[in-house]
């Protein structure tokens, strides 16, 4: 119940602060650029990379900044003085904002793909974008819980680093969520398997667990 109440507040605040409309604008930006890709070799893969790049901004902007501000802001004293388990604050933010991130990321990907290829993207790519959007939302939440003040910036840097990591030929790329998203979308020469899903879930969960551990002892 309290998670739903908090999620409702998070949603109201995001909508009334225009954060959502800015996120919409960010999500709409790549489609015109994708149009310029038309006729290029490896069109869908390049377009998919643009969609992944968007994930370096959208989840940190919506989830990371909202959660970081909540925890850093003095208003957190109202939360901590309530009989409320602290993980619920993070869960509520994810409940309210991660679906928005997923819808925007998927919508943007469909627009990008259509703009670049004039066709609907394959279902497998849509699933991969949705999964990666959720994974990056959870990572942003974890990072913002660890370092609320710099949460959004650190999350952006992290995802940028993740994108680079995913391009490495060595096995280090296994630590990159965007790499697994690419594999699952069939936009890589690696064959997708259950391990990709597993790591796409495990990496964000590690960040979330670290963040929640820190949150337990956090004082206002």
């Amino acid at each position, binding site marked *: *119940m*309290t998670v739903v*109440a*908090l999620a*409702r*507040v998070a949603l*109201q*605040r995001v909508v*009334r*602060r225009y954060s959502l409309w800015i996120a919409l604008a960010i999500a709409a930006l790549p489609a015109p650029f994708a149009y310029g890709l038309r006729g290029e070799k490896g069109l869908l893969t390049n377009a998919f990379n643009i969609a992944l790049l968007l994930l370096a901004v959208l989840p940190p902007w919506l989830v990371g900044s909202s959660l970081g501000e909540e925890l850093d*802001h*003095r*208003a957190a*004293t*109202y*939360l*901590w*003085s*309530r*009989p*409320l*388990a602290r993980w619920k604050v993070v869960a509520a933010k994810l409940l309210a904002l991660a679906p928005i991130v997923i819808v925007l990321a998927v919508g943007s990907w469909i627009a990008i793909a259509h703009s670049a290829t004039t066709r609907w993207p394959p279902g497998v790519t849509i699933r991969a974008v949705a999964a990666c959007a959720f994974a990056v939302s959870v990572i942003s939440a974890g990072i913002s819980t660890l370092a609320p003040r710099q949460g959004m910036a650190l999350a952006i840097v992290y995802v940028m680093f993740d994108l680079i990591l995913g391009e490495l030929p060595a096995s280090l790329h296994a630590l990159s969520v965007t790499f697994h998203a690419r594999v699952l979308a069939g936009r890589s020469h690696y064959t997708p398997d259950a391990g990709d899903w597993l790591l796409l879930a495990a990496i964000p969960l590690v960040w979330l667990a670290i963040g929640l551990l820190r949150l337990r*002892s956090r*004082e*206002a």
Partner: protein
Amino acid sequence: MTSPDVIVADRLSKWYGHVLGVSDVSWRMRGGIVGLLGPNGAGKSTLIKMMAGVARPSRGTLTVFGGTPFDDPAVRARIGYAPEHDKLWDELTALELVAALAELAGVPRARAKPAAETALDRMGLGDARDRRVRGFSKGMRQRVKLATAIAHDPDLLLLDEPLTGIDPVARVDIIERVRALAASGKAIVASSHVLYEIEALTSEIVVIYRGQVLAEGNVYEIRKLIDRHPHVIRVTCDRPRSLAEALAGAEHVVRIAFERGAVLIETRDPDRCYDQLATAVLDRAIAVQALTSPDNNLGAVFDYLTRGGM
């Protein structure tokens, strides 16, 4: 047998890095209104934060209703906390804000809105309930904070500087409302750095300075302690030296100092000093612009108490 104490602090300390917020405080509260009195930075807010369960003691113990507020949600459910700052969820209306926080404090959703409406009405904000908090004045924000603190009907209210920054009319009104809450059975801890604000709320005070409890008890007892020590009277007048001359020989005068256009007289017998001052002013036809007693402000009280005069 359960303890009748609402709050028990035993050798309680709190520090942030190298900064000491609260130092070795032992104190207990049974009910009513208790005023925490101390200048800014004295440790009042830190102490209240620990009582509210938003900060953890570094050393010693603090129990509220027999439990530790930081670790025990059931204890926090019985506490209403209005922090010193007025950072709220400004995007929400007053009703949405108070209802949401009531729900987070354990009030079922169906009852949260009526509870919020009642709390806002009690704080005199019934007409502004559907306005967003962003546009609220300082006084209205203080009232909203108080409404968030009372909406879930807690047994203990922790009000950190509830009267700061509000106009005199609103101050009187809030004081009346806080006293009404105490009359309805709530235990209340209210902090302030202004003596007369606390006096208006309660006669039971705890004096805090540099993280330590300097004195506690009835405000009049505290005043008696103060009266044992030199009392400073500041007279702004046209001829401060002439006035000083008239009083210089009096045996109760401890020290005389000058400021621009004023004389500061430190006395061990304020009543006699005021009499002699009046006589001197009349005899010498001195034009007095202002007569104040810095001892009546809190800074002077703390200075006396920390000089070891107690």
